[in-house]
């Protein structure tokens, strides 16, 4: 239909243009067309008989008709203004009919529609016209060959032009054809009722006469309506007759060579494909249809949770309005209104307890006064807006408990020290150092008051006191139970004290070891550093160092003892051998100022902690350090080694503690920041999976530190207990575990040693 219309339009334009030249040309043209019609009609009849005429003849018929009516319209407009019309017509050609133009486009469109309307009307009329024409022909002569032209020569004009006239047009001679006398409706009805052939009769308005269709014509129309070939004799599937003679055409119809473009792929096609490909790649063309969003939403749902709105970053849903009749409305229900007593009681309340809003009743909206705080509150609101930060505060809705790592319950990790039952009192100065003997029966302590005391663990009884002049720096029991010797460091001196424990034979060996009669001549290399001297005070041996001692550590076999002096390079650490009563220097260089040293619990490794890091040396292989542990701490204060020998704990003066898994890495496996003040000492239990740190904040922390035999499993560290109890002055200076029980000794600056039991 559109195609046909377009074609019609084009035709119309051409014809309009021609008509623009002369308005009268139509009149000249019309007769020609009319003359053609019978010819076509005649042809049609033949076609129907012989060839496939189908219904194209109808189209052909109606087409000129519609064109005519269009012409008429456009003529009418042309007369009004030619120039613009021409332009719009051009536009019509370029775009489709419904393309709107800027100016007059709308009018144009309406006109187009109107004209179409008219056109379709006309088409129908035309049809009826034709019918009537044919019918007339049938009526006048039975043979359809010589069809008589219609009586009326008025042409294809709207018949209402003649509505008010007495004639309907003019015959071929130019005489008026007068209208027939209008029959009375009742009469005509009766006539039709009487006439059995009435259903075949059609009124031809054009010629103003009744036409009766023949049976053949009815049959023809029925067939057309059914969509079949109009003529019954027509065979649509007739065998094809090839009229063209192929035999003698030895040459092609055209001798022109095939053009090149037939052989090469189309450039424009390729471009088009390329364009599409690019569009697909860039995602301009999407193959999957966009999902249709549901058009329904929860009407009464909470606004804040509807995700459609919460997609917007800054969207904050307004609060929902209350239903009418609530207590804050202008005319609330009576039960909201406070009584006089209630109002009086409000007055007695404190300002902050008083209800913010007291409901009131007003008879009409008109009588509501202005809000008295409006100015103040809007000013405050402005202040708020002015002062508030323009950041949307992110509220994280996470349970803080869920962020904590899952740790085993403390109950499952028992026993561990948690409560203090025993105190060892007797020192008069801060207890700087403690040491337990290997059996766990005794504990030795050194204090700033210059005394070394030996206590019975079980009862808290002080058994022995050695009094010196200087503050005690370090005490250390010999790890051998059969050699009950206490090494005591103070100032520049290191004393070996006989504790007089052990059996008689053990005492003899001890005395022999501590016999100062035959001290061998020191080697030249160490003569400047240490001198072995007899101790007149308690009958043992003392070793005088060239600098004050800061730390001592026994080798596990109880013969060697390392001392650390606050001196750089190699001279800072020396090894004393008690059995031979001689001193050795370390067979390697130490970088930096040593802080403390440790012997490996089972192998020949030696740990030296400097201020920043820990180096591991092999005593059997002189040379460079085998390993360097980077602590990342500011200043190391102490270290302790796990009895397995693979895990080292380092405490620092900034309150941090590092756990090194030496199999894992040279970096700390875990760094624990727990003390607000310096860590003074760390300790590891010999048999239980416990370790502890004590600090100047006068607390000691106990941790569960489980080392697994399975190399794939990392050590488990769980904080267990904070041990408080020492007075806050000076803190806890040393902590040591009981060698066999899960108990912790802490030495406080308040001159008390405490024992924490499980």
């Amino acid at each position, binding site marked *: 239909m559109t195609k046909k219309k377009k074609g019609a339009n084009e035709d119309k334009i051409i014809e309009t243009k021609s008509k623009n030249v002369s308005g009268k040309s139509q009149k000249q043209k019309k007769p020609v067309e009319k003359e053609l019609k019978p010819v076509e009609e005649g042809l049609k009849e033949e076609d129907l008989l012989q060839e496939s005429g189908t219904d194209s003849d109808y189209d052909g018929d109606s087409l000129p008709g519609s064109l005519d009516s269009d012409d008429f319209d456009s003529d009418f407009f042309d007369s009004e203004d030619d120039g613009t019309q021409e332009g719009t017509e051009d536009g019509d050609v370029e775009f489709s009919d419904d393309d709107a133009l800027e100016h007059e486009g709308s009018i144009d469109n309406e006109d187009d529609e109107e004209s179409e309307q008219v056109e379709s009307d006309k088409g129908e009329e035309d049809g009826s016209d034709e019918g009537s024409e044919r019918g007339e022909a049938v009526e006048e002569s039975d043979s359809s060959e010589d069809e008589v032209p219609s009586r009326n020569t008025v042409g294809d004009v709207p018949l209402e032009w003649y509505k008010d006239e007495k004639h309907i047009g003019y015959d071929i001679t130019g005489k008026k054809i007068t209208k027939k006398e209008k029959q009375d409706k009742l009469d005509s009805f009766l006539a039709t009722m009487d006439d059995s052939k009435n259903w075949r009769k059609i009124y031809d308005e054009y010629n103003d006469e009744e036409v009766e269709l023949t049976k053949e014509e009815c049959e023809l129309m029925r067939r057309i309506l059914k969509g079949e070939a109009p003529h019954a004799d027509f065979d649509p599937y007739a065998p094809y007759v090839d009229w063209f003679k192929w035999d003698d055409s030895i040459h092609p119809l055209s001798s022109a060579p095939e053009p090149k473009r037939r052989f090469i792929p189309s450039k424009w096609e390729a471009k088009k494909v390329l364009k599409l490909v690019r569009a697909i790649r860039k995602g301009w063309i999407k193959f999957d249809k966009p999902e249709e969003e549901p058009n329904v939403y929860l009407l009464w749902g909470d606004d804040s949770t509807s995700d459609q709105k919460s997609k917007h970053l800054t969207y904050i849903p307004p609060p929902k309005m209350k239903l009418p009749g609530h207590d804050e409305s202008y005319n609330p229900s009576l039960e909201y209104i406070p009584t006089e007593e209630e109002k009086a009681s409000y007055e007695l309340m404190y300002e902050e307890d008083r209800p913010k809003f007291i409901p009131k009743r007003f008879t009409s909206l008109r009588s509501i006064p202005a809000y008295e705080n409006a100015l103040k509150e809007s000013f405050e609101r402005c202040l708020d807006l002015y002062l508030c930060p323009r950041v949307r505060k992110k509220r994280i809705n996470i349970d803080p408990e869920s962020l904590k790592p899952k740790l085993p319950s403390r109950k499952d990790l028992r026993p561990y020290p948690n409560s203090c039952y025993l105190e060892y009192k007797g020192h008069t100065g801060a207890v700087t150092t403690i040491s337990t003997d290997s059996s766990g029966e005794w504990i030795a302590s050194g204090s700033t008051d210059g005394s070394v005391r030996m206590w019975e663990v079980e*009862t808290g009884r002080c058994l022995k006191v050695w009094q010196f002049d200087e503050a005690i720096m370090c005490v250390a029991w010999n790890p051998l139970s059969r050699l009950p010797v206490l090494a005591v460091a103070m100032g520049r001196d290191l004393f070996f004290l006989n504790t007089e424990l052990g059996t008689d034979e053990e005492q003899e060996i001890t005395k022999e070891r501590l016999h100062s009669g035959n001290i061998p001549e020191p080697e030249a290399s160490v003569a400047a550093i240490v001198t072995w001297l007899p101790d007149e005070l308690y009958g043992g041996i003392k070793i005088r160092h060239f600098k004050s001692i800061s730390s001592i550590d026994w080798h596990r076999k109880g013969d060697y003892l390392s001392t650390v002096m606050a001196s750089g390079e190699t001279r800072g650490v020396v090894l004393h051998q008690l059995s031979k009563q001689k001193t050795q220097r370390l067979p390697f260089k130490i970088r930096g100022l040593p802080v403390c040293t440790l012997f490996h619990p089972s192998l020949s490794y030696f740990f030296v902690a400097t201020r920043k890091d820990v180096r591991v040396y092999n005593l059997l292989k002189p040379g460079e350090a085998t390993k360097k542990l980077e602590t990342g701490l500011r200043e190391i204060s102490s270290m302790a080694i796990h009895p397995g020998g693979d895990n080292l704990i380092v405490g620092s003066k900034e309150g941090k503690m590092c756990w090194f898994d030496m199999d894992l890495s040279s970096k700390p496996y875990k760094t624990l920041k727990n003390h607000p003040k310096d860590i003074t000492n760390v300790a590891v239990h010999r048999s239980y999976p416990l370790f502890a740190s004590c600090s100047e904040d006068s607390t000691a922390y106990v941790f569960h530190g489980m080392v697994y035999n399975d190399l794939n499993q990392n050590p488990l560290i769980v904080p267990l207990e904070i041990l408080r109890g020492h007075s806050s002055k000076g803190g806890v200076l040393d902590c040591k575990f009981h060698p066999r029980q899960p108990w912790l000794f802490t030495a406080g600056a308040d001159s008390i040693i405490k024992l924490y039991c499980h």
Partner: protein
Amino acid sequence: MDVDREDVSRRLHVKFVTKLDSPFKVPVNSVAIPSNVTRLGLSSIVNSIIESDNPEWKTEPFDFLIDGELIRMSLEEFLLAKGISAERTLEIEYIRAVTPRKEEEPSLHDDWVSAVNGSSPRFILTGCYDSLGRVWRLAGSCSHILEGHSGAISSVALVNSNDAETVTVATASKDRTLRLFKFDPAESVDSTTKVRAYKILRGHKASVQSVSAQKSGNMICSSSWDCTINLWNTNESTSEGESVSVKKRKGNNQAEESQSEGEAVTSLVGHTQCVSSVVWPEHDVIYSSSWDHSVRRWDVETGKDSLNLFCGKALNTVDAGGEGSALIAAGGSDPILRVWDPRKPGTSAPVFQFSSHSSWISACKWHKSSWFHLLSASYDGKIMLWDLRTAWPLSVIDTHNDKVLSADWWKGESVVSGGADSNLRISSGIAIS
């Protein structure tokens, strides 16, 4: 007691019964008493009833039992808790309250009193950190001093008491030895006599912590920090021949005295840490407690441990007693006194736990004749008397100023204790029927 004002409905009809003898008896007819009285109220009621009959009556504290349980709350609550009907006439048994009525003068030592023993009714044995043992006939009168040790005495034991003439006493010391002393407690001398050991028992490699004697007095056992329990013979004559008699000249005024040395008959090995306490209540059964958190029962004949109770805490003291001498009480490095019943099958959990102390328990002793009573001493300076029938202490003796290191029953009605305040304290007048 103002009974009359009480609501009649809140009254209970009770009948006081007792097994006590004549002066303590009350008429058996029932009386109505208010339901909210406590032990103190009941005691004053009974006292007033007795006083009405006997004008010379001195007020006496009583304890009350209903169905074998001591009343430690108001009568009403007790009945509610036990589900006993308040409708019928209650039968309340009363006993004399187990509490010391008299505090003797303290007997001052030179040093901490580490051990006391009240096995003999004639005297009290004490061991002291000044390495001397002492025999006290009364409070404040020391009759003998047992000297010879070079280290603090940790434990004393009476070896034989059947011999009236002389008694044998064993002491254990931190100098790794035990010594046996003989003296005559009956000899009446005004000044204290110094006694030297007749036998020195060497063999332990570390401090001896505890000593206990067999009933017969022929053998003693000792426990030590070297994780062993040693058994020794006590007889003077060296029948085995292995002990060598050594002659020692001691001083210049003392006569020559023979001191024999003895060696251990056998060692019971099994504990992995210091054996802190040992008792020998029956002929061939030894109980021991250790810092390795276990209590063991040893069969002396075979030398094997037949029972091993694990406790979880380092233990300082153990005693066997109670019903059929079968219950084991032990205390240690926590404030809980535990009582096990090894006859109970299938469990090693303690049947009683008494936890009123606030520090380590240093001693616990069963009463020799009662099935229910035991005492415990703690480093918090308190001695508590316990009855198995209630979870609260019957009485708290708070006379020591410092840690109590040892305590024992004496003569069945007194508690003797020594502690870090260097005093021997005797609390007497405890009525245990």
